[in-house]
């Protein structure tokens, strides 16, 4: 598996798109720091961008990689290698190289700006942590869509819809249901609903860590009492792991049964 990982990673790291992605983050990091002149404010702005953009990039790269490397995958399957090693290796290669672009692209400007001397370092680390997880989660989800759809156009369509659902529609439905059922106690419901969407989960985690939950009013207080504790924080971080493991395992199960 490590060999497959090495070669997928190598293949991707040298592709033009990885550089574009890396350069984008570098530019973003430097611009934000230049404009804001304040690390913690830059972290908030970054969060808003990362929370939407990272899942989108993970989704698109996942689908694109799967379809582009189909013939190569066939070549590998005919070699004496276990199938699950091939697919797991490729997945880690894609998600790993994307995460690397993210961490390097944002890390370099922030470190140059004096991140290590700043109090915002843990906020920033949390931001990169959730960013990396979002990459791993959405790459895995989109690989699932790709492996179930032979037709590229359909695969791309479903993948974008999936992203749209988690990034935009989910919040809309969530808000609507809060309004419709406003007469009922909704604490548990809204907590669960947040845990069930990795994007919302990441956003809430970072907002609460930044201690601006007062902006969130009553719900903020409820969330603070959950996410603010070590237990709540731990559960949320674990949920991100669960969100990664489930799509990876369905992906590997399908890969074992698929004809090439």
């Amino acid at each position: 598996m490590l060999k497959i990982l090495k070669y997928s990673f190598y293949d991707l790291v040298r592709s033009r798109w990885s550089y574009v992605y890396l350069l984008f983050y570098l530019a973003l990091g430097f611009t934000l720091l230049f404009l804001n002149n304040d690390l913690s404010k830059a972290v908030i702005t970054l969060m808003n961008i990362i929370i939407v953009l990272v899942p989108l990039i993970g989704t698109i790269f996942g689908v694109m990689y799967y379809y582009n490397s189909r013939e190569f995958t066939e070549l590998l399957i005919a070699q004496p290698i276990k199938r699950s090693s091939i697919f797991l290796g490729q997945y880690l290669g894609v998600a790993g190289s994307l995460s690397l672009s993210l961490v390097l692209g944002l890390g370099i400007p922030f470190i140059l700006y004096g991140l290590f001397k700043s109090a915002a370092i843990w906020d920033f680390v949390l931001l990169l942590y959730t960013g990396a997880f979002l990459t791993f989660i959405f790459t895995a989800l989109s690989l699932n869509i790709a492996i179930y759809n032979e037709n590229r156009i359909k695969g791309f369509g479903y993948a974008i819809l999936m992203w749209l659902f988690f990034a935009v529609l989910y919040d809309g439905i969530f808000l609507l249901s809060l309004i419709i059922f406003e007469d009922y106690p909704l604490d548990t419901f809204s907590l669960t609903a947040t845990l069930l969407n990795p994007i919302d989960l990441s956003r809430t985690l970072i907002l609460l860590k930044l201690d601006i939950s007062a902006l969130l009013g009553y719900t903020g207080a409820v969330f603070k009492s959950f996410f603010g504790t070590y237990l709540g924080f731990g559960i949320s971080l674990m949920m991100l792991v669960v969100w990664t493991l489930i799509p990876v395992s369905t992906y590997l199960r399908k890969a074992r049964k698929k004809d090439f």
Partner: protein
Amino acid sequence: MIIVEGLHKKFGRNSVLQGIDLKIEKPGIYAILGPNGSGKTTVIKTILGMVLPSAGSIEVLGENISKKWRYRKELNYLPQIANFPGNLIVGELFNMIKDLRRMPSDEEHLIELFGLQPFLNSKLANLSGGTKQKVNIVIALMFNGQLLILDEPTTGLDPASLIELKKLIKEEKAKGKVILITTHIMDFVEEMADEIVYLLEGKIYFQGTIKDLTERTQQSDFQHAIAEISTTQHA
């Protein structure tokens, strides 16, 4: 070496293989023939474990291959469509396959034979179809497994390379290997094959030597015999 029993394969509602029984015990060159869509590639891919059978069993070198992968160490495969990761260069691809298989290999000789030295530093995405096929052939032939499976090996090759390929296949045969070939080029079959396996609509319609086939169909030459067998009942 290869024993296939009652092999069925369905893709959705489309039943591609409908009970294949095939025994290949002696070394030699076996040509798998049949019209388009008769299931040639599917048979090959089930032996390779790329396609999973709906029913039936396959043994390779005395071992049932279901859920196994180590038997592929003895198997070398030339796929029909050659496509590789575009960002790799040719030399890296060879090294990668060598690294993945960890077996003694003889690619230097093959690279020279097909004149691939000038392309070793080219990106795979920029190669012509014929050159890609040569790269493909080198990958399939650089290891010394006991089984060689070639799916349409002649596609895109120029006449000189075709002659080299034939020579190579004969050399491999002389080493006592089993070689499975699918092709639509009948001259190639007539020149190379020891035995023919003719597939039609997912079943084996005929298995035997070229001589058996011409005798059975009462045709004077091989090409007519093949044409005859695909139009009338002889099995």
